[in-house]
């Protein structure tokens, strides 16, 4: 069973003028951290809100934890940290967790045990009795995180969780998410910042203008195309022609060539050819592209959409 599964999920506003999400098909396996990446306005929030029944789709359908998204009962196993969430300002952290915990169907006894634990977890114990209108953005965000965990959910949606949080806090949140994964929880993470997602996600989808451009494991993303940097002893032979014969695109730099091959076998055919021509190979180095390069590439390719 997938924890999240969408079938051509679509949300258009203003009679189709604003295409916030178009024919989205994603699947999230249990116990994974799923990172949904995309620039601002890509449709990430729209997707999450649709999965939670906050936004009604204009097309397609979806399931969370095996239930259709119209079934609100399943929300007792779901946690949600909304982007720009807004808690009642006249309450303190403890009271907020109490009210919203009760709304999740938890008993007073469970809550009186759970609340101090969670406040400790997000480092808000010292602020537990301070009204939230005095909180900084980062503190509000940490309270939001505690709120998302109050019902010990199986599936957690986090919409830009590290927004307004300093680098140390970000690291803490990443560690927390990794810990939650070891407990078997599924985490659906929205972010426009690649670095936040890249380090911890098992799987990533890239969204742009409401379209899923790419989806897959983080490693797969980088090795979609294999590129190698080759240094050879320049002789009489035309390297470019030789590559053209093998259908290998080449880029020439000052002291090396960069070749793009389909796989290792393809690369070896090139090496065989070079050796047959008695060309001296000085070095072959796989070219690492960072996910960031890749992300920007995909986003720019998607520009045409």
């Amino acid at each position, binding site marked *: 069973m997938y924890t999240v599964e969408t079938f051509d999920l679509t949300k258009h506003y203003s009679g189709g003028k604003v295409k916030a999400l178009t024919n989205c098909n994603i699947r999230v396996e249990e116990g994974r951290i799923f990172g949904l990446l995309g620039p601002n306005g890509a449709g990430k929030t729209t997707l999450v809100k649709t999965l939670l029944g*906050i936004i009604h789709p204009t097309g397609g359908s979806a399931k969370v934890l095996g239930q259709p998204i119209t079934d609100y009962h*399943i929300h007792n196993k779901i946690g949600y940290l909304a982007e720009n969430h807004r808690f*009642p300002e006249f309450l303190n952290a403890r009271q907020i967790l109490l*009210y919203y915990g009760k709304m*999740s169907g938890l008993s007073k006894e469970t809550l009186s045990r759970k609340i101090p634990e969670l406040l400790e977890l997000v480092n808000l114990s010292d602020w537990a009795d301070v009204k939230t209108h005095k909180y900084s953005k980062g503190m509000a965000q940490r309270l939001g995180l505690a709120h998302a965990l109050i019902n010990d959910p199986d599936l957690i949606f986090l919409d830009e969780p590290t927004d307004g949080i300093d680098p140390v806090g970000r690291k803490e949140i990443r560690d927390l998410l990794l810990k939650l994964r070891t407990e078997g929880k599924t985490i659906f993470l929205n972010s426009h910042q690649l670095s936040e997602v890249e380090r911890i996600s098992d799987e990533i989808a890239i969204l742009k203008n409401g379209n899923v451009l790419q989806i897959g494991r983080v490693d797969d993303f980088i090795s979609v195309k294999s590129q190698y940097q080759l240094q050879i002893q320049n002789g009489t032979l035309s390297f470019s022609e030789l590559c053209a014969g093998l259908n290998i695109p080449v880029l020439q730099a000052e002291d090396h060539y960069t070749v793009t091959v389909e796989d290792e076998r393809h690369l070896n055919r090139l090496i065989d050819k070079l050796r047959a021509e008695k060309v001296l190979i000085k070095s072959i180095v796989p070219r690492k592209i960072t996910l960031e390069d890749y992300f920007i590439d995909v986003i720019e390719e998607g520009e045409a959409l």
Partner: protein
Amino acid sequence: MKFLSIVQLTFRESLAKKTFIAFMGISTFICLLFIFALNVDIVDGMQSGLSIFGKEVSNQIDLTKIIYGIEGGLSVLLYTAGIFLSLFATSNLIPTLLKPGFVDLFISKPVSRFQILSGRFLGSILIVALNIFYLVIFSGLILSIKTGIWNFGFLWAAVIIVLSFLVLFSLMTFLSVISKNGPLSLMVTYLILFFSPLLLARDKIYALLSSKYFGYFFDGLYYALPKTAEMGAITQFLARGVPIDSWMPLWSSLLFAVVMLGLSGYIFQRKSF
């Protein structure tokens, strides 16, 4: 439990607004006034003399009249100023609920949208009911204990006042759900509140109308909209012990509230946030 927490949160939110605290303060002041202004001398276990605001009252019949009069006056005050202020104080409870980032948190809980809206509605009604019953019960007890005259009509008047508030609040809820705008919803609700006496007196302008269809139109409006003028009269009659000839204004207004709530629920259900 889940539903109750929505009601409680709404209640708590109203308290935080301080308007209701002020409301309670005024009520307490009125009650204290009665405690000190009403002077009953008991001589040999018998009531020998009574003074209200320093004026001597000689016989029992006059006294009953005065107590019913005071309670009638209080219920009119509560019906007019009380409802007016309550509508003002509750006018942003529904629009706040609908704010992005706030409503999301409710919908993401295992509660239905219907429960969210009705919990919010009930919480608003309860805080107003609490205020109204506080004044009525407290002041009624003081008056009755001091004079020995028990007027349960005053309590019934409080029930009608709360129901009238409920009717107007359901209109305001409907307006808020479609417009998300608190001040606008409040103004339109006030307009209906003040329009009601005019509709009641519509036969006075029938002669001026060019067509009988206008007459039907005003009749239609009269029956469709909350009959606040007549419910005010019912409130006062109940408090003063005057028999009521027709309950139609009450039940037709309650019907209006049911329709408003049904529509609000339907629209809220279909909204994306």
